[in-house]
């Protein structure tokens, strides 16, 4: 589900709103097609969002990875 919530008020008085997926999916900005993991927009931004099918991956740590294509 897409969630939109108040984020903060900037020093210039502009209110910002945060949009994200509560199921940790990427979201797509309908008007541009851009993909975001979260979107901070000014209050009157003309954007709407839909969830994509892609989950936001958990961060990887290099120490836990292994090369598959090693060639000496």
């Amino acid at each position, binding site marked *: 589900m897409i969630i939109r919530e108040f*984020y903060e008020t900037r*020093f210039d008085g502009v209110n910002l709103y945060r949009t994200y997926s509560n199921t940790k999916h990427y979201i797509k*900005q309908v008007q541009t097609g851009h993909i975001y993991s979260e979107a*901070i927009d000014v209050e009157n*931004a003309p954007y709407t969002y839909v969830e994509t099918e892609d989950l936001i991956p958990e961060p990887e740590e290099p120490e836990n990875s292994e*090369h*598959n294509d090693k060639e*000496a």
Partner: protein
Amino acid sequence: MNILTLNTLNGDKVIVRGGNGGGGNSGGGSTGEDIGANIFAPFIDDGKTRIWVQILQDAERGIALNYTQSLTNGISVDFGDGSPARFHTKVSPNNCYIEHTYEKIGLYCITLTPVSDSVTYELGNRSYYNPLMPKDRSITLSANTMIRVDIGKGCVGIPYAFVKSPVRVVNFSPNIQLKSISQEAFSDTVCPKFIIPKTVTAFENGCFSNYSASSLRIIDCASLMAVPSLANTSTLPSKGYGTPYKIIVPDALYDEWIAATNWSAFVNYIVKASEYND
């Protein structure tokens, strides 16, 4: 041994030791025509990518180079010590991983040369690897190992290229085809200034995240023709990350930039190019 100092863009100094390494590219600071011997050489836009490395101790003589390429044997790799050029058969998205051991400590320039203008490549890979790593994964390369990287025009991606790396200077070819600052590209590095190529249209997830406190000074976007997308607010360091940095943008795009998705949260950092005084 010669001991030279590289002045970085934020006034820090990197000590470069040379003079007793192996091959023709040791002896940092020499002024011959061989660019590999001179870490202070100006950027040359000849299509090649150059990585200056400083091997400071015997335990670090073994290194591994990571990249991807669009064509089998598409990139010639010269490790800068007189050894024969190396190639790799894997094609993107598979990773090319070439190990090399220098005979002596010293300063070297690794040169990646595409075999034709149609060959593209990425530095690093999307499994969280720098272009340059220790061959022995149980050790960590010294802080001054990868000092300077000049990225040639055939490079189309820098995924994880400099995450947690000690690189101090990164130069992009003015003719580079880079479309995005790739995922985690400059995460947690110490380089103070980046001039973003004009072709960039996206800042991918985490490309400047967890930036070392007080290191970052400037993200110069002044040459961009449009506001790039910004994956999320974690992509850039924000409140609590030491000395504030500046994002320099074209005057004509300033209003659009501070209203753009996710950039809107960084209004305190965004300045017009005409109003920025270094």
